[in-house]
């Protein structure tokens, strides 16, 4: 009937499979919050080419087959024209296959695995990543750590990262760049606790045994806080410098009760970095609305909506293909940009130019008073080199 047709023309459904239950339900809720905050603004400003966005958000329970099923259902049955894939790790690859199958516009918002966009075999024209990318993180982290290592004479290093693709790849890349900038360091111990491991005792004592001068970890979320609590009672933090890339996110910072001073961390989401009024305002707006601080996932998802809105404006259409076309190479103003903008790089359809840096923590606000910004020029150079070494170009 004409009425239905008009109603459909009026709204555009955006499907979002994510994890809303189980251990990492926080990923889903803060992703959803980030998205909804922006969708409201976009809708208030007239929507996507005049069509109001209607979000359809479903739980995948973190199972890839469920993620695939939900994604298909969102498109095939619920009539979603765009997918926001807020899945972690394997779920993202599963949704990626659905996007390949159905040709629907898909924005990966949470998966930081470099291969998702860097590997040309994965490449499809309709999928984009609006999240940070692992290798960027490692380049910045490596160069930051090298500076500290040289200054403090840290030669013996240990690593302790979760035993799954993200943990292994990020750690390997980090070590590569650390050694590149400070060739005389040495990794004397590696630990690979399982994801969601409740007890880290053996890992802690193993590291203490090895007596390294510095420790790198890309544990995150609850695992990181558990680890800190357990390492604390062994007084590990007083015995070495600790570099924990995922520490400087409010989820971890606000939760840990006895946060040791001076942990080096990459920024995830921090209200004070970039130190711009836009960023602070965004963080406050989020906090006001949801009564909690945004997470790394929040800004990554918010960025997806911001990019969508701009691309649609540019294409003057809500059509997936046209938006995709407009997205390639699109640069938008963003509170999360290193220079106030972020760019959807055309060649591999992944986000670049976001604020990225490292600093040390203190146990109270602003938690990370000084952030040393990463340099995107270096990132691009080394990333290109990395791609070549991987055979991606």
């Amino acid at each position, binding site marked *: 009937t004409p009425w239905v047709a008009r109603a459909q023309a009026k709204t555009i459904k955006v499907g979002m499979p994510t994890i*809303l*239950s*189980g*251990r990492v*339900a*926080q990923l*889903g*809720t803060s992703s959803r919050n980030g998205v909804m905050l922006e969708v409201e603004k976009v809708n208030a400003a007239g929507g996507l080419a005049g069509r109001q966005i209607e979000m359809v958000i479903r739980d995948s329970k973190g199972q890839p087959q469920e993620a695939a099923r939900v994604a298909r259902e969102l498109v095939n049955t619920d009539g979603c024209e765009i997918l926001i894939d807020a899945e972690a790790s394997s779920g993202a690859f599963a949704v990626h296959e659905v996007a390949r199958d159905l040709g629907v516009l898909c924005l990966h918002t949470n998966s930081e695995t470099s291969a998702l966009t860097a590997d040309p075999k994965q490449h499809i024209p309709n999928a984009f990543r609006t999240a940070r990318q692992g290798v960027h993180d490692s380049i910045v982290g490596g160069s930051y750590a090298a500076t500290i290592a040289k200054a403090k004479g840290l030669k013996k290093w240990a690593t302790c990262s979760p*035993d799954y693709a993200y943990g292994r790849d990020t750690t390997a890349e980090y070590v590569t760049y650390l050694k590149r900038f400070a060739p005389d360091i040495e990794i004397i*111990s*590696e*630990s*690979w606790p*399982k994801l*969601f*491991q*409740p*007890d880290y*005792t*053996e*890992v*802690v*004592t*193993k590291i*203490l*045994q090895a007596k390294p001068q510095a420790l790198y970890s890309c544990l995150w*979320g*609850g*695992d990181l*806080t*558990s680890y800190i*609590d*357990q390492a*604390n*009672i*062994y*007084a590990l933090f007083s015995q070495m410098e600790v570099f924990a890339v995922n520490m400087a996110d409010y*989820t971890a910072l606000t*939760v*840990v*009760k*006895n946060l040791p001073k001076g942990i080096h961390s990459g920024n995830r989401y921090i209200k004070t970095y970039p130190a711009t009024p836009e960023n602070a305002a965004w963080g406050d707006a989020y906090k006001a609305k949801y009564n*909690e601080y945004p997470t790394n996932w929040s800004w990554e998802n918010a960025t997806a909506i911001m990019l969508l809105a701009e691309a649609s404006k540019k294409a003057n259409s809500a059509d997936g293909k046209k938006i995709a076309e407009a997205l390639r190479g699109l640069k938008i103003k963003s509170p999360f940009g290193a220079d106030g903008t972020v760019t959807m790089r055309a060649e591999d359809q992944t986000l670049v130019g976001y604020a990225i840096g490292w600093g040390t923590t203190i146990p109270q606000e602003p938690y990370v008073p000084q952030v040393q910004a990463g340099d995107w020029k270096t990132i691009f150079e080394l990333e290109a080199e990395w791609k070549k070494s991987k055979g991606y170009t």
Partner: protein
Amino acid sequence: MDLDALTGCLASSACLVTQTTSGFIIGMLLFLVAVGLTLIFGVLKVVNFSHGAFYMFGAYFAMTAYQFSGSFALAMLCGAAGTAILGLIFERIFMSRVYGADVLMQLLVCYAFVLIFDDVVRMIWGPEFKSMGMPAAFQVAPLFIAGGVVPPYYLLLIGVALAAAMILGLGLARTRIGKVIRAAAHNPGMVSALGINTGLIYGGVFALGGMLAGLAGALAAPVRSLTPGMGFSVLIESFIVTVIGGMGSILGALIGALLIGLIRSFGSLGFPLFTEGLMYLFMVIVLVSRPTGLFGKEVA
């Protein structure tokens, strides 16, 4: 694989002592969770898949109590007592209805509660992970005992676990109530025909099992992050422990837990990427050589 690290450690006495100590610590924490599981299986022949959920509730109760009162002792008490009551209610209202039925039906009820409890925790405490924080009394430097590093907090934990093992082990073997409990496990109909209220025993055992899980959760709360679903990973390891030791055997659970602890502490040196697999491998080897676990009774 990193066999050099392993042999290196075995050659150094400091490393040997430290890793053995950490194996013991891991084992004792595991035992504390596993003992309730094995008790409930031993008596009610119920494979309590909801045990992890009780562990979770214990942790959340303790954290909440600690936040409000700031008293560690009260936090532990709330964790243990709260889950004991929960266990009793769970058993009397739900589990008791499926005793006659298929074993799998019991599993199903437990499974239902795993789902329900996780969501209930998510409703009450939110989806984000939480941390209780270490009480100030325990924020002290670790001790060195025979060359091994032991944080004082873990000493407390080991003490509680050993006490639980002794009280339960001796209680079940020596006291009349212990004997009755074991008999009720085997043949509730006959036990009740001898004038003993089996309902009371079952409820009591479940409450005790729940209390042990809750206590374990409460004790773990200062050193582990609290999140819905946190019971799951603990559950699987506890199952490994109880199966290796022999389902229903308290001593078995203790030995099994210590063995797993040692495998973890030394395995993480030699096989950092396959520590998990090592545990399963060990379990397979134990079961193949001893089909009912190390201390399990012959299955009829």
